[in-house]
């Protein structure tokens, strides 16, 4: 039952260096609450993987460990073969773009354009390239016409798109997203899923939106208690109602149709 996609992904990953290799990661918050308890996970380049699991399973903590915002007490994170250390922080952050669940946390500049330009400017790229990259990122999320707006004058759906553009402009080959569809109206949500589907990047998305998982990610990793509980083809995981139920989730067909 666990066969299929994972083995294919694993053998493909063995040939080239995997985009992400997380090995036996252990992390506890400063107050002593353990969050990750020996978590291991490989993601091949170009894969789109969903991280699912109940609140407190360790999904967001894992994402924050991928580019060194949080530093695990033990275990390792390797990005295209490069181990995450104090010295490699900056170069790993050029590989792994992180999208925070609340776009207001991500946007801090006076205009949309300034914010999208922050990443490339920090990299020290020449001005023309910064502008070219920023405009390209903004147009790929359909927000170029809002370039001069202050972020607090945008709707949530627009803020989400701009937040994605701020990561796209950095040109990171890996994109890690925390709850990207939370609080979006159905149309904005649909647009966002379409956008993520089209991006030719390695994508890791932590979410409770299992309908999006079904549309977007061929592979699902179920976390609970800071460990990987299941790592299989999305189709299998979402059809295993017993497994989902045991970890605080519901199959997407059971969502929102109490009278169907």
């Amino acid at each position: 039952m666990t066969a299929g996609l994972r083995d294919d992904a694993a053998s493909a990953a063995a040939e080239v260096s995997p985009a992400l290799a997380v090995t036996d990661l252990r992390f506890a918050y400063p107050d002593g609450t353990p969050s990750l308890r020996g978590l291991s996970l490989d993601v091949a380049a170009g894969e789109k993987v969903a991280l699912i699991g109940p609140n407190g399973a360790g999904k967001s903590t894992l994402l924050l460990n991928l580019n060194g915002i949080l530093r695990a007490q033990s275990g390792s994170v390797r990005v295209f073969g490069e181990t995450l250390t104090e010295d490699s922080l900056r170069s790993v952050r050029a590989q792994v773009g992180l999208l925070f669940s609340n776009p207001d946390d991500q946007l801090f500049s006076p205009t949309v354009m300034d914010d999208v330009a922050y990443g490339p400017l920090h990299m020290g790229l020449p001005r023309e390239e910064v502008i070219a990259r920023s405009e390209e990122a903004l147009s790929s999320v359909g927000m170029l016409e809002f370039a001069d707006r202050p972020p607090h004058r945008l709707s949530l759906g627009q803020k989400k798109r701009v937040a994605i553009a701020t990561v796209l402009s950095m040109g990171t080959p890996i994109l890690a997203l925390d709850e990207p569809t939370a609080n979006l109206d159905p149309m904005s949500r649909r647009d966002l899923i379409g956008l993520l589907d089209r991006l030719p990047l390695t994508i890791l998305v932590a979410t409770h939106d299992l309908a999006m998982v079904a549309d977007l990610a061929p592979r699902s990793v179920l976390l609970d208690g800071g460990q990987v509980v299941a790592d299989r083809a999305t189709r299998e995981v979402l059809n295993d109602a017993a497994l989902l139920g045991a970890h605080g989730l519901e199959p997407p067909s059971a969502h929102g149709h109490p009278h169907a």
Partner: protein
Amino acid sequence: MSAFAAVVERYEERDSPLHRADARAKVPAAFVYILAITATREGDWGVLALLALPVFAGALVSRLGVWFVVRRTFLALPFVMAAVPLIFTRDGATVFTLPLVGWTASDEGIVAVATILARSWIAVGVAALLVSTTTIVEILRALRAFRVPRLLVATIFFAYRYFFVIGEEALRMLRARDSRSAAVPGHRAGGSLRWRAQVAGHMVGSLFVRSLERSERVFAAMQSRGYQGEPRFLDHPAFPSMHGVAAAAVVAYGVAVQLGARLA
């Protein structure tokens, strides 16, 4: 929450008589005792030592430990440093002269500054003991019991409550910035100091705008639940008179030390 709360929270859970003491006894006792400390005359080292004794005793009784309380008093050091120039401005016999600038330090100036430092240090020790052994809610309850204006009490409460929320928000913004602060081979990363300062300034600005917007949402939510400006407490426990007696004894000791020094 946890990461930031651990830095800000001042209350330290322990099982001690000082923790169990009613805040309506502790708050006024601490207040009057601090006033007694500030009444110390310059160079009256004996009085300062006598007044420091109960603070030491309190640190031991509270099971926090002397070192714990001493560490917390360091928080006030930068403010106390404002008194240091007094060494050079006070008249008196010259003790030494600063090379280059040629400022002269007087003996009276040194005594004055040392007294100010000692007085502040002991007073901050009292305050550190109070907030380490009393939860914020109990302190607010005591302030209301002593008829401190409710607007002031409400302001203190909200400052405390939203310090956590806004601090967490700032922390998340810093994380988001750090995660986009990358370097690629062949380019000097980081940008100019001026640009980084600009970014930091904008972050402070957006934090302010967001806090303001949040305050409006919070106030609307409070009004819709019938808030009228008075903090409500679930219960009003009786005041144990023995706690009042103990508080009065501490205050009487401080006053007696000061009076004794002046009569002797």
